[in-house]
């Protein structure tokens, strides 16, 4: 029983990272209809920026994180204006290829700027072990879960209670009606992208603390797709639920089925969800007009 709880907690910790990435996906998708394949590479970029700030420029952890968030936000705005805005309203394939091309460019630029060496994140988040009733929890895991929880809480409140949040929800619901109601949809899109990039950076920094700062951090983006779909592409709380669920499924299947096929099982789950209930757990059935 202890083992099961242990796996569960590790799963929730891993899942929280997936949840942050999935939240970024879902935010952008809901507001602009763009499925941002570059989210994984942006995570990696965020981790490298934070590393540069702490290791190269010698900042402490918190100012480094703040600086990274500011830079990511600016990059998000730039990305929106340069790449997304000219292509808005195009076919799905165009947008998908544009974000994939963007992710390739980002990965390649990161490799040119920082090289392919794997590095340890300096001044890491404290990693001690707490023992609660026979169950071992590391403070790193707790911080990861905590940070994800705080992010989601902030977003929930933001969407619910601020004007900008209300405008974002309106644009996501029905952009034409929102524009007719006086919402500046351009501003909403810009903010959405900036926020999504900041989320990706947070996820990247957390992940870099758990493992290493390396160019392969972006691969986690691939595992976040099942998270978004399982939770529901069209639902923001769904992304969070999906992320945690996928993390738990991954760890439990590693524990009880086989470690090497943990990724494949996640994809099998994705396939089953797509075939049976494509709109996910918390999503709504999509109505396509002919």
């Amino acid at each position, binding site marked *: 029983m202890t083992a099961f709880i242990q796996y569960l907690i590790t799963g929730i910790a891993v899942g929280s990272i997936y949840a942050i990435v999935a939240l970024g996906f879902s935010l952008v998708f809901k507001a602009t209809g763009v499925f941002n394949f570059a989210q994984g590479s942006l995570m990696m970029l965020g981790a490298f920026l934070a590393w540069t700030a702490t290791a190269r420029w010698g900042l402490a952890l918190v100012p480094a994180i703040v600086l990274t968030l500011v830079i990511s936000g600016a990059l998000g705005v730039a990305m929106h204006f340069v790449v997304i805005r000219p292509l808005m309203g*195009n076919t*799905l394939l165009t947008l998908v*290829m*544009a974000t994939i091309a963007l992710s*390739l460019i980002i990965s390649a630029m990161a*490799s040119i700027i920082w090289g392919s060496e794997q590095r340890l994140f300096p001044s890491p988040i404290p990693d001690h072990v707490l023992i609660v009733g026979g169950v071992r929890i590391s403070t790193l895991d707790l911080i990861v879960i905590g940070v994800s929880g705080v992010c989601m809480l902030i977003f929930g409140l933001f969407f619910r209670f601020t004007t900008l949040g209300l405008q974002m929800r309106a644009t996501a619901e029905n952009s034409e009606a929102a524009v007719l109601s006086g919402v500046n949809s351009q501003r909403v899109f810009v903010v959405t992208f900036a926020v999504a990039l900041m989320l990706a950076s947070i996820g990247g920094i957390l992940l870099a603390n758990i493992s290493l700062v390396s160019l392969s951090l972006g691969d986690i983006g691939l595992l976040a797709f099942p998270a978004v779909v399982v939770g529901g592409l069209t639902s923001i709380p769904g992304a969070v639920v999906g992320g945690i669920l996928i993390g738990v499924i991954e760890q439990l299947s590693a524990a009880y089925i086989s470690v090497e096929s943990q990724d*494949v099982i996640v*994809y*099998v789950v994705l*396939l089953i969800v797509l075939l049976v209930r494509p709109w996910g757990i918390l999503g709504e059935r999509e109505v396509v007009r002919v």
Partner: protein
Amino acid sequence: MSDKKRLGGSRLTTNYRQDLRVMPRGPWPWLCLIVGVAFLVYVPTWVENSAPLGIGSADVNFALITIMGAIALNLLVGYTGLLSMGHAAFLALGAFGAALLGVKAGVPFWITVILSGCMGALVGALVGLPSLRLRGLYLLLSTLALNFIALFLFLKYQLHAFGPAGINYPYPSFLGITFNNDTKWYFLLIVCVIGTMLLSRNLLRSRDGRAFVAVRDSDVAAGVTGVNVAAIKLKAFALSSFIVAFAGALYAYYVSTVNQDSFSLDQVIGYYACVIVGGLGSLSGAVYGALLYSLLPPILTQLSNDVGPNAPVIGPLLAQHASDLNLVIFGVVVLLILMVRPAGLASIASSIGQSFRRWPFSS
């Protein structure tokens, strides 16, 4: 069918050749054909001896295999509008078929390759089943999931049947010729590529081809006009997968050893980039895109060698980060094409061709 046949006493045309005779083009098409064939025959000797722009004979052969893969993807995505991320899995399937039949069972080369293609078609139809229920992004994600599952199964098979080192393929022989050097492979691959191109072109002229395009434009409307949408979608998957598996089997024999690292998601993205840069839905576009994608790396390498590591700014960049630069350039090209000229290189080529043809009346 006789060209001079008249129906009901009037000049009704019943085939393409009659159609085209409205605008006589003189000897030009035949001349171009002869020059083209001569050039293709000359390419292997030219490349072997003087490596123009740093392109070697291996590069040319890989470009040919990529062209086949790009044409297959164009069939699926460009003609029928079905977004599938399963390309790498089908290449692996081709290699698997070649391993099972050619290496383990000793079946002759040409039968192996064709049967691998058929296996690809069967599995393709299976993979196409989700496409009957899912559209757009969901189809993309489901084929992505299937891709990873298939690659995992390939790894399992490789470890079980061949061991950790990978699968080794002997030099194939066909019609008494053993294909053990690049020139022989070039001629084999050129024949296959031309066959694939003819297949793709004739498909579009057939009833099924038009049905593919109808399904892409609006499958509900196509269904209303009498197209069997489910059958067409499965046919598209089957045909495209046949070509990819065929190309995968050829690739396995050419490279002579594969393991699970040989097939990855990056290949799929590369093929999509080929097709989009070339121009979605156009056969010549797939060819241009594939050529650009496969020949850009050796050209860049040659450039980095010529420029040397001591040139200002680009010297060390090219010397140490040539492949990163390759990706950056290709990513930027894709973005530019998407933003500025979505119809791709093929449309640029055809508009240039038009301006030459219409001179001095071109705009």
